[in-house]
């Protein structure tokens, strides 16, 4: 299986997209909407022409600015699944799948469990079915690179979970270099081997999801991965801990080195709740009013002042946590990361 090597600049309306990537497995690009994620896919598919750089799949060069080489979309071995799927409304499911590759249509219809829909019009299908048709259509062409634009965003919450699992299995089975674009970090972490965070057309960090969580490069990456971010000013103390004076006036300690304006990153599952504040500087305490309590399965997400804690339902019950009540949120100095604010 040939790797994708892409390094290019694509001018967009208000900023330039600048990207360097090597893809051999599944890479997810995450970021806020308007960050240029979909434009990456358009450039790779040949639907947009970069101003600089080179794109190649193995030895097959698709774009080379210096050699003025630009291969048209139909001359690239690429399968693109559009956000709204872009199924041809005037063709049946079978003819949609056959559009790109006529050879093994029945096989793909069966593989994607859409054989019984073969003669239906795409306009009659549910969101999940449409996505399967779009995937079958893209893969029936047997491309060397698979591109997925927000594969889960147009599905309802219930279908989403099922489709995510299907997609996971599919990506493992086809083992193609794949780039998927999403604004949801959880989807990215579930589907991809590596996650790249794009903001304003720039790749901030590219790493395996657990690495992004453990060592976020900056404040944006940290908050995107679901961490709490507390802004403050860092100062080195005598006992090898860094003291951060928060904007709210409180002081917290981190085992990470840092100086000046920083963000303190702490994940909700590192935060415990209690009734009494601690005096140990290795354990940070923030006293605050409970602003919201949301139960997700057996876990409860409690927002205390500026920080969100994720605790078990039983401990939330024991503490009688309720909205408006006063609790202490605690987290270890070693459980925090300091990141530059950006």
């Amino acid at each position, binding site marked *: 299986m040939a790797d994708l090597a892409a390094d290019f600049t694509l001018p967009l309306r208000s900023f330039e997209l600048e990207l360097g990537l090597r893809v051999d497995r599944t890479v997810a690009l995450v970021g806020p909407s308007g960050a240029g994620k979909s434009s990456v896919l358009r450039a790779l*598919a040949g639907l947009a022409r970069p101003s600089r750089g080179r794109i190649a799949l193995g030895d097959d060069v698709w774009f080379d600015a210096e050699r003025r080489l630009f291969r048209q979309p*139909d001359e690239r071995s690429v399968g*693109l699944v559009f956000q709204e799927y*872009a*199924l*041809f409304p005037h063709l049946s499911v079978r003819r949609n799948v056959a559009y790109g590759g006529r050879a093994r249509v029945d096989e793909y219809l069966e593989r994607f469990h859409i054989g019984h829909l073969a003669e239906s019009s795409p306009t009659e299908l549910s969101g999940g079915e449409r996505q399967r048709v779009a995937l079958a259509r*893209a893969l029936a062409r047997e491309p060397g690179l698979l591109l997925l634009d927000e594969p889960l965003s147009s599905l309802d919450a219930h279908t989403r979970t099922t489709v995510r699992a299907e997609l996971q299995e599919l990506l493992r089975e086809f083992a193609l270099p794949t780039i998927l674009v999403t604004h949801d970090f959880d989807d990215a972490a579930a589907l991809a081997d590596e996650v790249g965070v794009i903001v304003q057309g720039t790749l901030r960090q590219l790493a395996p999801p657990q690495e992004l969580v453990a060592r976020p490069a900056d404040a944006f990456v940290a908050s995107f991965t679901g961490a709490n971010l507390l802004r403050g000013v860092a100062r080195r103390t005598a006992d090898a801990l860094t003291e951060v004076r928060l904007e709210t006036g409180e002081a917290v300690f981190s085992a990470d080195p840092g100086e000046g304006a920083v963000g303190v990153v702490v994940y909700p599952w590192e935060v415990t709740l209690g009734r009494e504040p601690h005096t140990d500087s290795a354990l940070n305490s923030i006293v605050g009013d409970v602003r919201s309590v949301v139960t997700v399965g057996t876990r409860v997400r409690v927002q205390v002042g500026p920080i969100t804690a994720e605790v078990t339902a039983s401990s939330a019950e024991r503490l009688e946590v309720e909205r408006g009540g006063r609790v202490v949120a605690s987290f270890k100095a070693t459980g925090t990361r300091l990141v530059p604010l950006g």
Partner: protein
Amino acid sequence: MRKALHVVGLFAATALTLGFLVLPLAALFTRQSPVELVHQLSNPVVTDALKLSVVTSAIAQALILLLGTPTAYLVATRRFPGRSLVVTLVELPLVLPPAVAGIGLLVAFGRVGLLGSTFDALGISVAFNRTAVVLAVAFVASPLYLRAAIAAFEALDPNLVAASRTLGAGPVRTFFRVALPLTSAGLAAGAALSLARGLGEFGATIMFAGSLQGVTQTLPLAIYAEFDRDFDVAVTISALFVVITAAILLSLKLSALWRTSQRTSRSLFARLSWS
């Protein structure tokens, strides 16, 4: 009381409007008996004009579709400097008086016009012959088609075109397999309007091509010529015209209806149980 007055007023206005629009058309058919009407159709003036109108309209329409469709596709799907100027230029002949169109055609393609000597050298003569009729018809009718076709192609989801390209289809295959089928309803509507407009073309034709029976005298010109000579023949051609135009309009409406029923019938049948 006031409400009753309101309703009566509404009905009176509607009756007046419809009566005003329908009466002149109906009068064309009541002046002569149907037998006389049909008999008049075999008058050589009528048959010559009908043949000429059909032939010139068919050629003009073919040219409009053949050249207009790719033009509209380009204008609708590409962004280029001066695009809005092109769109305005396309619409200009629509609002111009036909007399201006006639003069314009004369000074452009006529014997003493801009391209007159070029046409002469190429052996093309546009002096008072069928070619002149075709040019006049195409000039006044094509903007209607172009405008509808540009609107239809602009409404086409660009992602469908992009999807076709990434699935290995080149621009030509994409045009014929995706763009054309998905815009066919809009294109057909534009073609019908332009056909009707072309058939009725009068001012530009009479100035640019003249009114010679069997050569350049189309149906509208024949009505005008017979108006002075044999009024009944003029009425007959007018009645014939109403029938032709109504047929075009009706087939357009029916094809639109057929399309929507095609699109929804399957789900409709699924929803309603007919057994």
